[in-house]
Protein backbone atom coordinates (compact mmCIF):
# COMPACT_ATOMS: atom_id res chain seq x y z
CA UNK A 1 0.00 0.00 0.00
CA UNK A 2 2.77 2.31 1.08
CA UNK A 3 4.76 1.37 -2.01
CA UNK A 4 1.80 2.17 -4.23
CA UNK A 5 1.42 5.64 -2.71
CA UNK A 6 5.08 6.29 -3.32
CA UNK A 7 4.74 5.20 -6.90
CA UNK A 8 1.78 7.53 -7.46
CA UNK A 9 3.74 10.40 -5.96
CA UNK A 10 6.74 9.58 -8.13
CA UNK A 11 4.61 9.44 -11.28
CA UNK A 12 3.07 12.82 -10.39
CA UNK A 13 6.50 14.37 -9.84
CA UNK A 14 7.73 13.05 -13.17
CA UNK A 15 4.67 14.44 -14.95
CA UNK A 16 5.09 17.86 -13.38
CA UNK A 17 8.77 17.84 -14.38
CA UNK A 18 7.87 16.94 -17.97
CA UNK A 19 5.12 19.56 -18.15
CA UNK A 20 7.62 22.21 -17.06
CA UNK A 21 10.09 20.97 -19.68
CA UNK A 22 7.42 21.11 -22.39
CA UNK A 23 6.41 24.61 -21.31
CA UNK A 24 10.01 25.85 -21.42
CA UNK A 25 10.39 24.35 -24.87
CA UNK A 26 7.31 26.01 -26.31
CA UNK A 27 7.12 29.31 -24.41
CA UNK A 28 9.68 31.16 -26.60
CA UNK A 29 7.74 30.27 -29.76
CA UNK A 30 4.43 31.24 -28.20
CA UNK A 31 5.91 34.54 -27.03
CA UNK A 32 7.28 35.41 -30.48
CA UNK A 33 3.95 34.41 -32.05
CA UNK A 34 2.15 36.69 -29.58
CA UNK A 35 4.55 39.56 -30.37
CA UNK A 36 3.94 39.14 -34.09
CA UNK A 37 0.20 39.64 -33.55
CA UNK A 38 0.41 42.56 -31.12
CA UNK A 39 0.57 46.30 -31.59
CA UNK A 40 3.93 47.99 -31.14
CA UNK A 41 2.71 50.21 -28.35
CA UNK A 42 1.62 47.14 -26.37
CA UNK A 43 5.02 45.51 -26.98
CA UNK A 44 6.98 48.60 -25.92
CA UNK A 45 4.99 48.92 -22.71
CA UNK A 46 5.87 45.30 -21.90
CA UNK A 47 2.29 44.00 -21.83
CA UNK A 48 2.78 41.07 -24.19
CA UNK A 49 3.79 37.75 -22.68
CA UNK A 50 2.15 34.64 -24.11
CA UNK A 51 -1.02 36.12 -25.58
CA UNK A 52 -1.32 38.85 -28.22
CA UNK A 53 -2.39 42.31 -27.00
CA UNK A 54 -4.34 44.57 -29.41
CA UNK A 55 -4.60 41.65 -31.83
CA UNK A 56 -3.82 42.66 -35.41
CA UNK A 57 -2.24 41.23 -38.56
CA UNK A 58 -0.48 44.35 -39.75
CA UNK A 59 3.02 42.95 -39.07
CA UNK A 60 2.34 39.99 -41.38
CA UNK A 61 0.82 42.30 -43.98
CA UNK A 62 3.93 44.45 -43.92
CA UNK A 63 6.37 41.53 -44.04
CA UNK A 64 4.48 39.81 -46.84
CA UNK A 65 4.30 43.15 -48.66
CA UNK A 66 8.09 43.41 -48.57
CA UNK A 67 9.36 42.21 -51.95
CA UNK A 68 12.82 41.29 -50.61
CA UNK A 69 11.31 39.05 -47.95
CA UNK A 70 9.07 37.25 -50.44
CA UNK A 71 12.03 36.88 -52.78
CA UNK A 72 14.14 35.31 -50.03
CA UNK A 73 11.35 32.92 -49.05
CA UNK A 74 10.83 31.83 -52.66
CA UNK A 75 14.58 31.58 -53.22
CA UNK A 76 14.92 29.30 -50.20
CA UNK A 77 12.01 27.15 -51.31
CA UNK A 78 13.47 26.67 -54.80
CA UNK A 79 16.93 26.11 -53.32
CA UNK A 80 15.74 23.55 -50.76
CA UNK A 81 13.69 21.57 -53.29
CA UNK A 82 16.45 21.50 -55.93
CA UNK A 83 19.18 20.72 -53.42
CA UNK A 84 17.22 17.87 -51.85
CA UNK A 85 16.50 16.39 -55.26
CA UNK A 86 20.11 16.60 -56.48
CA UNK A 87 21.58 15.46 -53.18
CA UNK A 88 19.26 12.48 -52.94
CA UNK A 89 19.90 11.43 -56.55
CA UNK A 90 23.66 11.69 -56.14
CA UNK A 91 23.62 9.83 -52.82
CA UNK A 92 21.63 6.99 -54.43
CA UNK A 93 23.95 6.97 -57.45
CA UNK A 94 26.94 6.55 -55.14
CA UNK A 95 25.35 4.19 -52.62
CA UNK A 96 24.04 1.58 -55.04
CA UNK A 97 27.35 0.63 -56.70
CA UNK A 98 29.23 0.91 -53.41
CA UNK A 99 26.81 -1.51 -51.77
CA UNK A 100 28.07 -4.27 -54.09
CA UNK A 101 30.98 -6.28 -52.70
CA UNK A 102 31.99 -7.52 -56.12
CA UNK A 103 32.59 -4.06 -57.56
CA UNK A 104 36.22 -3.63 -58.53
CA UNK A 105 37.87 -0.67 -56.81
CA UNK A 106 35.12 -0.49 -54.19
CA UNK A 107 37.55 -0.44 -51.30
CA UNK A 108 39.67 2.35 -52.75
CA UNK A 109 36.59 4.46 -53.44
CA UNK A 110 35.32 3.93 -49.90
CA UNK A 111 38.66 5.10 -48.51
CA UNK A 112 38.51 8.15 -50.77
CA UNK A 113 35.11 9.03 -49.29
CA UNK A 114 35.84 8.14 -45.66
CA UNK A 115 38.92 10.39 -45.59
CA UNK A 116 36.61 13.36 -46.25
CA UNK A 117 34.66 12.52 -43.08
CA UNK A 118 37.75 13.22 -40.99
CA UNK A 119 39.54 15.97 -42.78
CA UNK A 120 38.43 18.93 -44.85
CA UNK A 121 40.16 21.96 -46.25
CA UNK A 122 38.21 24.28 -43.99
CA UNK A 123 35.98 27.20 -44.90
CA UNK A 124 38.59 29.49 -46.47
CA UNK A 125 40.01 27.04 -49.04
CA UNK A 126 36.42 26.01 -49.78
CA UNK A 127 35.48 29.63 -50.34
CA UNK A 128 38.42 30.14 -52.67
CA UNK A 129 37.51 27.02 -54.64
CA UNK A 130 33.90 28.15 -55.02
CA UNK A 131 35.13 31.56 -56.07
CA UNK A 132 37.61 30.23 -58.62
CA UNK A 133 34.89 28.05 -60.11
CA UNK A 134 32.83 31.21 -60.54
CA UNK A 135 30.01 29.93 -58.34
CA UNK A 136 29.81 32.77 -55.81
CA UNK A 137 26.49 34.60 -55.93
CA UNK A 138 24.82 31.69 -57.69
CA UNK A 139 22.49 29.07 -56.26
CA UNK A 140 25.05 26.41 -57.26
CA UNK A 141 27.38 27.61 -54.51
CA UNK A 142 24.76 26.47 -51.99
CA UNK A 143 24.20 23.11 -53.74
CA UNK A 144 27.39 21.70 -55.21
CA UNK A 145 29.89 21.98 -52.30
CA UNK A 146 27.56 19.93 -50.04
CA UNK A 147 26.06 17.67 -52.68
CA UNK A 148 26.69 14.41 -50.84
CA UNK A 149 26.86 14.09 -47.09
CA UNK A 150 29.23 11.15 -46.48
CA UNK A 151 27.45 10.19 -43.26
CA UNK A 152 24.11 9.87 -45.04
CA UNK A 153 25.87 8.00 -47.84
CA UNK A 154 27.18 5.44 -45.35
CA UNK A 155 23.68 4.99 -43.92
CA UNK A 156 22.25 4.40 -47.38
CA UNK A 157 25.00 1.92 -48.30
CA UNK A 158 24.29 -0.02 -45.11
CA UNK A 159 20.59 -0.05 -45.96
CA UNK A 160 21.16 -1.22 -49.54
CA UNK A 161 23.49 -3.98 -48.38
CA UNK A 162 20.72 -5.36 -46.20
CA UNK A 163 18.57 -6.08 -49.27
CA UNK A 164 18.84 -9.82 -50.00
CA UNK A 165 21.17 -10.35 -52.96
CA UNK A 166 18.99 -13.25 -54.11
CA UNK A 167 16.31 -10.72 -55.10
CA UNK A 168 18.77 -8.73 -57.19
CA UNK A 169 20.38 -11.77 -58.79
CA UNK A 170 16.98 -13.10 -59.82
CA UNK A 171 16.18 -9.91 -61.69
CA UNK A 172 19.64 -9.78 -63.25
CA UNK A 173 19.18 -13.41 -64.33
CA UNK A 174 16.24 -12.22 -66.40
CA UNK A 175 18.68 -10.11 -68.35
CA UNK A 176 17.87 -6.89 -66.54
CA UNK A 177 20.85 -4.60 -65.94
CA UNK A 178 21.91 -3.02 -62.69
CA UNK A 179 19.97 0.12 -63.47
CA UNK A 180 16.73 -1.82 -63.80
CA UNK A 181 17.23 -3.67 -60.55
CA UNK A 182 18.01 -0.35 -58.86
CA UNK A 183 14.83 1.25 -60.17
CA UNK A 184 12.50 -1.72 -59.87
CA UNK A 185 13.68 -3.47 -56.72
CA UNK A 186 16.09 -1.47 -54.59
CA UNK A 187 14.44 1.95 -54.63
CA UNK A 188 10.87 0.75 -53.97
CA UNK A 189 12.17 -1.24 -51.00
CA UNK A 190 14.09 1.73 -49.63
CA UNK A 191 11.39 4.38 -49.45
CA UNK A 192 11.66 4.88 -45.66
CA UNK A 193 15.41 5.48 -45.73
CA UNK A 194 15.08 7.73 -48.79
CA UNK A 195 12.41 9.78 -47.02
CA UNK A 196 14.51 10.09 -43.89
CA UNK A 197 17.69 11.12 -45.65
CA UNK A 198 15.78 13.45 -47.98
CA UNK A 199 14.24 15.15 -44.97
CA UNK A 200 17.57 15.63 -43.27
CA UNK A 201 18.97 17.12 -46.47
CA UNK A 202 15.96 19.44 -46.78
CA UNK A 203 16.01 20.61 -43.16
CA UNK A 204 19.76 21.14 -43.30
CA UNK A 205 19.47 23.23 -46.44
CA UNK A 206 16.53 25.28 -45.20
CA UNK A 207 18.35 26.04 -41.95
CA UNK A 208 21.82 26.44 -43.48
CA UNK A 209 23.39 29.83 -42.92
CA UNK A 210 27.17 29.83 -42.86
CA UNK A 211 27.75 28.95 -46.52
CA UNK A 212 25.39 31.68 -47.70
CA UNK A 213 27.24 34.17 -45.50
CA UNK A 214 30.50 33.19 -47.22
CA UNK A 215 29.29 32.82 -50.80
CA UNK A 216 26.35 35.20 -51.31
CA UNK A 217 26.78 38.95 -51.25
CA UNK A 218 24.05 39.92 -53.69
CA UNK A 219 20.87 40.76 -51.69
CA UNK A 220 18.76 39.42 -54.56
CA UNK A 221 20.17 35.96 -53.81
CA UNK A 222 19.77 35.99 -50.04
CA UNK A 223 18.27 32.76 -48.72
CA UNK A 224 15.77 33.25 -45.93
CA UNK A 225 18.27 32.61 -43.11
CA UNK A 226 20.65 35.29 -44.36
CA UNK A 227 17.76 37.70 -44.84
CA UNK A 228 16.50 36.94 -41.37
CA UNK A 229 19.98 37.37 -39.90
CA UNK A 230 20.05 40.86 -41.35
CA UNK A 231 16.71 41.59 -39.70
CA UNK A 232 17.87 40.15 -36.37
CA UNK A 233 21.10 42.15 -36.55
CA UNK A 234 18.89 45.17 -36.83
CA UNK A 235 17.72 44.64 -33.26
CA UNK A 236 21.28 45.10 -32.05
CA UNK A 237 21.78 48.37 -33.88
CA UNK A 238 18.89 50.23 -32.32
CA UNK A 239 18.12 53.80 -33.22
CA UNK A 240 20.14 53.77 -36.38
CA UNK A 241 19.22 53.45 -39.98
CA UNK A 242 20.71 50.73 -42.09
CA UNK A 243 21.30 50.83 -45.78
CA UNK A 244 20.29 47.90 -47.87
CA UNK A 245 21.29 48.42 -51.45
CA UNK A 246 19.99 51.85 -52.35
CA UNK A 247 17.01 51.68 -50.01
CA UNK A 248 17.02 53.10 -46.51
CA UNK A 249 15.08 51.01 -44.09
CA UNK A 250 14.13 52.36 -40.72
CA UNK A 251 14.69 50.42 -37.53
CA UNK A 252 12.27 47.53 -37.56
CA UNK A 253 9.54 47.31 -34.93
CA UNK A 254 9.56 44.20 -32.73
CA UNK A 255 6.32 42.93 -34.23
CA UNK A 256 7.83 42.92 -37.73
CA UNK A 257 10.89 41.03 -36.53
CA UNK A 258 8.68 38.52 -34.80
CA UNK A 259 6.51 38.05 -37.86
CA UNK A 260 9.63 37.46 -39.98
CA UNK A 261 10.89 34.88 -37.49
CA UNK A 262 7.51 33.13 -37.57
CA UNK A 263 7.47 33.05 -41.38
CA UNK A 264 10.97 31.56 -41.56
CA UNK A 265 9.98 28.94 -38.96
CA UNK A 266 6.59 28.15 -40.49
CA UNK A 267 7.72 25.57 -43.08
CA UNK A 268 9.52 23.57 -40.39
CA UNK A 269 6.61 23.86 -37.98
CA UNK A 270 4.11 22.80 -40.66
CA UNK A 271 6.08 19.82 -41.89
CA UNK A 272 7.50 18.68 -38.57
CA UNK A 273 4.57 16.98 -36.78
CA UNK A 274 3.69 14.87 -39.84
CA UNK A 275 7.20 13.78 -40.61
CA UNK A 276 8.47 13.36 -37.10
CA UNK A 277 8.45 9.57 -37.34
CA UNK A 278 10.91 9.78 -40.21
CA UNK A 279 13.19 12.07 -38.26
CA UNK A 280 13.27 9.63 -35.39
CA UNK A 281 13.63 6.62 -37.67
CA UNK A 282 16.60 8.36 -39.25
CA UNK A 283 18.32 9.07 -36.00
CA UNK A 284 18.10 5.38 -35.17
CA UNK A 285 19.36 4.13 -38.54
CA UNK A 286 22.78 5.43 -37.64
CA UNK A 287 24.58 8.28 -36.06
CA UNK A 288 23.04 11.12 -38.03
CA UNK A 289 25.19 14.16 -37.65
CA UNK A 290 23.33 17.47 -37.50
Amino acid at each position, binding site marked *: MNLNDQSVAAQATIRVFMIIAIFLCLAPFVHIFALSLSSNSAILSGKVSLLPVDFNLSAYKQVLGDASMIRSLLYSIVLTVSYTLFALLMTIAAAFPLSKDKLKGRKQMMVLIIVTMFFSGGPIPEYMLVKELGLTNTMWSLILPILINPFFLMIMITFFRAIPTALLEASEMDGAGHLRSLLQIVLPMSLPVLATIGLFYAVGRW*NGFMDSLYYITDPKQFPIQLKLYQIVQNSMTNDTTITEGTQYIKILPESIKSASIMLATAPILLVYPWLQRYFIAGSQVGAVKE
Partner: protein
Amino acid sequence: MRLNWQLYMLLALPLSFFIIFRYGSMYGVIIAFKEYNIFQGVMKSPWSGLDTFRQIFAMDNFWNSLKNTFLLNFLDLIVSFPAPILLALNLNELRLSLFKRFAQTVLYLPHFISWVIIGGIVYQVFATNNGFLNEMLGALGIGPIPFLTNPGTWLITYLLVGVWQSAGWGTIIYLAAITSINPELYEAAAMDGATRIRRMWNITLPGIAPTIILMLIIKVGDIVQIGFDRPYVLGNASVGDTSRVLSTFVYQLGMTSGQFSMAAAVGLFQSVVGLVFLFGANALARRWTGRGIF
Protein backbone atom coordinates in the same frame (compact mmCIF):
# COMPACT_ATOMS: atom_id res chain seq x y z
CA MET B 1 30.46 -8.93 -64.23
CA ARG B 2 28.21 -8.07 -67.14
CA LEU B 3 26.95 -4.52 -67.39
CA ASN B 4 29.29 -3.25 -64.70
CA TRP B 5 29.74 -0.15 -66.81
CA GLN B 6 26.33 0.91 -65.51
CA LEU B 7 27.67 0.90 -61.97
CA TYR B 8 30.73 2.94 -62.90
CA MET B 9 28.54 5.34 -64.84
CA LEU B 10 26.45 5.89 -61.73
CA LEU B 11 29.60 6.56 -59.73
CA ALA B 12 31.06 9.09 -62.17
CA LEU B 13 29.26 12.19 -60.88
CA PRO B 14 29.43 11.40 -57.16
CA LEU B 15 33.16 10.67 -57.39
CA SER B 16 33.73 13.88 -59.34
CA PHE B 17 31.96 15.70 -56.53
CA PHE B 18 34.30 14.25 -53.90
CA ILE B 19 37.39 14.91 -55.97
CA ILE B 20 36.51 18.45 -57.05
CA PHE B 21 34.87 19.80 -53.95
CA ARG B 22 36.24 17.77 -51.04
CA TYR B 23 39.77 17.16 -52.33
CA GLY B 24 39.94 20.37 -54.34
CA SER B 25 39.43 22.36 -51.17
CA MET B 26 42.03 20.27 -49.34
CA TYR B 27 44.48 21.29 -52.04
CA GLY B 28 43.60 24.92 -51.32
CA VAL B 29 45.03 24.47 -47.83
CA ILE B 30 48.47 25.13 -49.34
CA ILE B 31 47.69 28.85 -49.20
CA ALA B 32 48.38 28.56 -45.48
CA PHE B 33 52.00 28.12 -46.54
CA LYS B 34 51.90 30.89 -49.11
CA GLU B 35 51.53 34.61 -49.13
CA TYR B 36 48.19 34.61 -50.90
CA ASN B 37 47.56 37.37 -53.34
CA ILE B 38 44.17 37.65 -55.03
CA PHE B 39 45.69 38.73 -58.33
CA GLN B 40 48.17 35.87 -58.50
CA GLY B 41 45.77 33.16 -57.35
CA VAL B 42 46.53 30.03 -55.33
CA MET B 43 49.07 28.58 -57.76
CA LYS B 44 51.23 31.60 -58.41
CA SER B 45 51.30 33.24 -54.99
CA PRO B 46 54.81 33.04 -53.49
CA TRP B 47 55.67 30.41 -50.86
CA SER B 48 56.20 31.73 -47.38
CA GLY B 49 56.98 28.58 -45.41
CA LEU B 50 55.74 28.76 -41.84
CA ASP B 51 55.61 32.57 -41.70
CA THR B 52 51.81 32.58 -41.64
CA PHE B 53 51.78 30.30 -38.62
CA ARG B 54 54.30 32.50 -36.82
CA GLN B 55 52.01 35.45 -37.52
CA ILE B 56 48.86 33.80 -36.18
CA PHE B 57 50.66 32.46 -33.11
CA ALA B 58 51.64 36.04 -32.36
CA MET B 59 48.04 37.25 -32.46
CA ASP B 60 46.18 37.79 -29.19
CA ASN B 61 42.86 37.18 -30.89
CA PHE B 62 44.01 33.76 -32.06
CA TRP B 63 44.80 32.61 -28.52
CA ASN B 64 41.62 34.25 -27.30
CA SER B 65 39.54 32.35 -29.84
CA LEU B 66 41.32 29.08 -29.04
CA LYS B 67 40.77 29.58 -25.32
CA ASN B 68 37.11 30.45 -25.85
CA THR B 69 36.58 27.43 -28.07
CA PHE B 70 37.83 25.15 -25.29
CA LEU B 71 35.98 27.12 -22.63
CA LEU B 72 32.59 27.19 -24.38
CA ASN B 73 32.83 23.51 -25.35
CA PHE B 74 33.95 22.48 -21.88
CA LEU B 75 31.17 24.40 -20.13
CA ASP B 76 28.71 23.07 -22.71
CA LEU B 77 29.84 19.58 -21.82
CA ILE B 78 29.20 20.17 -18.13
CA VAL B 79 25.85 21.92 -18.58
CA SER B 80 24.38 20.27 -21.67
CA PHE B 81 25.62 16.72 -21.27
CA PRO B 82 23.52 15.60 -18.29
CA ALA B 83 20.29 17.25 -19.53
CA PRO B 84 19.26 14.62 -22.13
CA ILE B 85 20.08 11.80 -19.69
CA LEU B 86 17.80 13.33 -17.06
CA LEU B 87 15.06 13.91 -19.64
CA ALA B 88 15.35 10.39 -21.05
CA LEU B 89 15.10 8.82 -17.58
CA ASN B 90 11.93 10.81 -16.94
CA LEU B 91 10.44 10.20 -20.38
CA ASN B 92 11.00 6.50 -19.87
CA GLU B 93 8.97 6.56 -16.66
CA LEU B 94 5.92 8.21 -18.25
CA ARG B 95 3.08 5.72 -18.25
CA LEU B 96 0.62 7.57 -20.50
CA SER B 97 1.88 6.79 -23.98
CA LEU B 98 -0.04 9.64 -25.58
CA PHE B 99 1.52 12.16 -23.19
CA LYS B 100 4.92 10.58 -23.77
CA ARG B 101 4.59 10.91 -27.55
CA PHE B 102 3.44 14.52 -27.23
CA ALA B 103 6.35 15.31 -24.90
CA GLN B 104 8.82 13.79 -27.37
CA THR B 105 7.36 15.71 -30.30
CA VAL B 106 7.68 19.00 -28.45
CA LEU B 107 11.12 18.34 -26.99
CA TYR B 108 12.67 17.34 -30.34
CA LEU B 109 11.40 20.48 -32.06
CA PRO B 110 14.18 22.96 -31.15
CA HIS B 111 16.73 20.70 -32.87
CA PHE B 112 15.08 21.49 -36.21
CA ILE B 113 15.11 25.26 -35.79
CA SER B 114 18.02 27.13 -37.33
CA TRP B 115 20.44 29.09 -35.15
CA VAL B 116 19.50 32.28 -37.00
CA ILE B 117 15.89 31.82 -35.92
CA ILE B 118 16.95 30.83 -32.40
CA GLY B 119 19.16 33.92 -32.32
CA GLY B 120 16.20 36.06 -33.37
CA ILE B 121 14.07 34.57 -30.61
CA VAL B 122 16.86 34.93 -28.05
CA TYR B 123 17.36 38.61 -28.87
CA GLN B 124 13.65 39.20 -28.25
CA VAL B 125 13.32 37.07 -25.13
CA PHE B 126 16.59 38.00 -23.38
CA ALA B 127 16.79 41.70 -24.33
CA THR B 128 17.70 44.03 -21.48
CA ASN B 129 15.06 46.60 -22.40
CA ASN B 130 11.64 45.15 -22.91
CA GLY B 131 12.80 41.53 -23.15
CA PHE B 132 10.26 38.94 -22.02
CA LEU B 133 12.51 37.50 -19.32
CA ASN B 134 13.51 40.88 -17.90
CA GLU B 135 9.87 42.00 -17.86
CA MET B 136 9.02 38.91 -15.82
CA LEU B 137 11.98 39.38 -13.49
CA GLY B 138 11.08 43.07 -13.21
CA ALA B 139 7.63 42.09 -11.97
CA LEU B 140 9.40 40.18 -9.18
CA GLY B 141 11.57 43.19 -8.45
CA ILE B 142 14.73 41.71 -9.99
CA GLY B 143 16.98 43.14 -12.65
CA PRO B 144 17.09 44.18 -15.39
CA ILE B 145 19.87 41.67 -16.13
CA PRO B 146 22.01 42.30 -19.25
CA PHE B 147 21.74 38.72 -20.53
CA LEU B 148 23.31 39.52 -23.89
CA THR B 149 25.75 42.36 -23.33
CA ASN B 150 27.74 41.38 -20.24
CA PRO B 151 30.36 38.64 -20.85
CA GLY B 152 29.48 36.62 -17.74
CA THR B 153 25.73 36.65 -18.21
CA TRP B 154 26.13 36.17 -21.97
CA LEU B 155 28.00 32.96 -21.27
CA ILE B 156 25.11 31.72 -19.13
CA THR B 157 22.61 32.66 -21.85
CA TYR B 158 24.76 30.85 -24.44
CA LEU B 159 24.84 27.70 -22.32
CA LEU B 160 21.13 27.71 -21.43
CA VAL B 161 20.11 28.22 -25.05
CA GLY B 162 22.32 25.25 -25.91
CA VAL B 163 20.49 23.07 -23.40
CA TRP B 164 17.16 24.26 -24.77
CA GLN B 165 18.18 23.42 -28.33
CA SER B 166 19.83 20.05 -27.80
CA ALA B 167 18.46 18.35 -24.66
CA GLY B 168 15.32 16.91 -26.27
CA TRP B 169 16.95 15.52 -29.39
CA GLY B 170 19.80 14.13 -27.28
CA THR B 171 17.35 11.81 -25.48
CA ILE B 172 16.88 9.62 -28.56
CA ILE B 173 20.12 7.73 -28.17
CA TYR B 174 19.51 7.15 -24.46
CA LEU B 175 15.90 6.07 -25.01
CA ALA B 176 17.17 3.56 -27.57
CA ALA B 177 19.71 2.30 -25.03
CA ILE B 178 16.99 1.97 -22.38
CA THR B 179 14.82 -0.22 -24.63
CA SER B 180 17.66 -2.72 -24.83
CA ILE B 181 17.72 -3.27 -21.06
CA ASN B 182 16.40 -6.70 -20.09
CA PRO B 183 12.82 -6.22 -18.75
CA GLU B 184 13.24 -9.17 -16.38
CA LEU B 185 15.54 -7.00 -14.29
CA TYR B 186 12.66 -4.60 -13.65
CA GLU B 187 10.25 -7.43 -12.85
CA ALA B 188 12.67 -8.94 -10.36
CA ALA B 189 13.24 -5.54 -8.76
CA ALA B 190 9.48 -4.94 -8.51
CA MET B 191 9.12 -8.33 -6.78
CA ASP B 192 11.74 -7.28 -4.26
CA GLY B 193 9.74 -4.14 -3.64
CA ALA B 194 12.19 -1.68 -5.15
CA THR B 195 10.71 1.79 -5.62
CA ARG B 196 10.60 3.54 -8.95
CA ILE B 197 13.48 5.80 -8.00
CA ARG B 198 15.57 2.83 -6.92
CA ARG B 199 14.86 1.02 -10.17
CA MET B 200 15.84 4.12 -12.12
CA TRP B 201 19.04 4.42 -10.12
CA ASN B 202 19.99 0.74 -9.87
CA ILE B 203 18.81 -0.66 -13.21
CA THR B 204 18.20 2.02 -15.86
CA LEU B 205 21.22 4.15 -15.13
CA PRO B 206 23.76 1.28 -15.05
CA GLY B 207 22.02 -0.11 -18.15
CA ILE B 208 22.75 3.01 -20.17
CA ALA B 209 26.16 3.69 -18.61
CA PRO B 210 28.12 2.35 -21.62
CA THR B 211 26.17 4.72 -23.90
CA ILE B 212 26.81 7.62 -21.53
CA ILE B 213 30.54 6.92 -21.49
CA LEU B 214 30.67 6.60 -25.27
CA MET B 215 28.79 9.89 -25.77
CA LEU B 216 31.11 11.60 -23.30
CA ILE B 217 34.19 10.37 -25.17
CA ILE B 218 32.73 11.54 -28.48
CA LYS B 219 32.11 15.00 -27.00
CA VAL B 220 35.65 15.19 -25.64
CA GLY B 221 36.96 14.17 -29.06
CA ASP B 222 35.03 17.07 -30.58
CA ILE B 223 36.23 19.67 -28.09
CA VAL B 224 38.17 21.70 -30.69
CA GLN B 225 35.28 21.55 -33.16
CA ILE B 226 32.78 24.32 -32.75
CA GLY B 227 29.88 25.16 -34.99
CA PHE B 228 29.88 28.56 -36.60
CA ASP B 229 26.23 29.55 -36.39
CA ARG B 230 25.62 29.45 -32.65
CA PRO B 231 28.51 31.65 -31.42
CA TYR B 232 28.25 33.90 -34.47
CA VAL B 233 24.52 34.55 -34.19
CA LEU B 234 24.41 34.81 -30.40
CA GLY B 235 27.60 36.88 -30.17
CA ASN B 236 27.72 40.66 -30.43
CA ALA B 237 30.17 43.51 -30.15
CA SER B 238 29.89 43.91 -26.37
CA VAL B 239 30.90 40.31 -25.67
CA GLY B 240 33.41 39.93 -28.52
CA ASP B 241 36.24 38.67 -26.30
CA THR B 242 34.03 35.87 -24.97
CA SER B 243 32.11 34.89 -28.10
CA ARG B 244 35.12 34.85 -30.42
CA VAL B 245 35.86 31.19 -31.23
CA LEU B 246 37.98 29.55 -33.92
CA SER B 247 35.16 29.26 -36.46
CA THR B 248 34.07 32.89 -36.15
CA PHE B 249 37.68 34.06 -35.98
CA VAL B 250 38.40 32.34 -39.31
CA TYR B 251 35.42 34.12 -40.86
CA GLN B 252 36.42 37.49 -39.48
CA LEU B 253 40.06 37.10 -40.46
CA GLY B 254 39.35 35.76 -43.96
CA MET B 255 36.15 37.37 -45.10
CA THR B 256 36.14 40.64 -43.17
CA SER B 257 39.87 41.42 -43.11
CA GLY B 258 40.81 39.60 -46.32
CA GLN B 259 43.73 37.75 -44.66
CA PHE B 260 43.10 34.53 -46.57
CA SER B 261 46.42 32.85 -45.84
CA MET B 262 46.18 33.51 -42.12
CA ALA B 263 42.55 32.43 -41.95
CA ALA B 264 43.36 29.21 -43.83
CA ALA B 265 46.25 28.59 -41.42
CA VAL B 266 43.93 28.94 -38.42
CA GLY B 267 41.50 26.53 -40.11
CA LEU B 268 44.30 24.04 -40.76
CA PHE B 269 45.53 24.33 -37.19
CA GLN B 270 42.01 23.57 -35.97
CA SER B 271 41.65 20.57 -38.31
CA VAL B 272 44.93 19.04 -37.21
CA VAL B 273 44.40 19.57 -33.48
CA GLY B 274 40.85 18.27 -33.98
CA LEU B 275 42.16 15.08 -35.56
CA VAL B 276 44.57 14.54 -32.68
CA PHE B 277 41.71 14.83 -30.18
CA LEU B 278 39.45 12.60 -32.27
CA PHE B 279 42.00 9.79 -32.54
CA GLY B 280 42.88 10.23 -28.88
CA ALA B 281 39.22 9.88 -27.94
CA ASN B 282 38.91 6.84 -30.17
CA ALA B 283 41.83 5.17 -28.45
CA LEU B 284 40.23 5.95 -25.08
CA ALA B 285 36.94 4.48 -26.22
CA ARG B 286 38.67 1.28 -27.37
CA ARG B 287 40.32 0.98 -24.02
CA TRP B 288 37.32 1.70 -21.79
CA THR B 289 34.38 0.33 -23.71
CA GLY B 290 36.01 -2.25 -25.93
CA ARG B 291 34.82 -0.57 -29.12
CA GLY B 292 35.95 2.54 -30.92
CA ILE B 293 33.91 5.51 -32.00
CA PHE B 294 34.66 4.64 -35.59
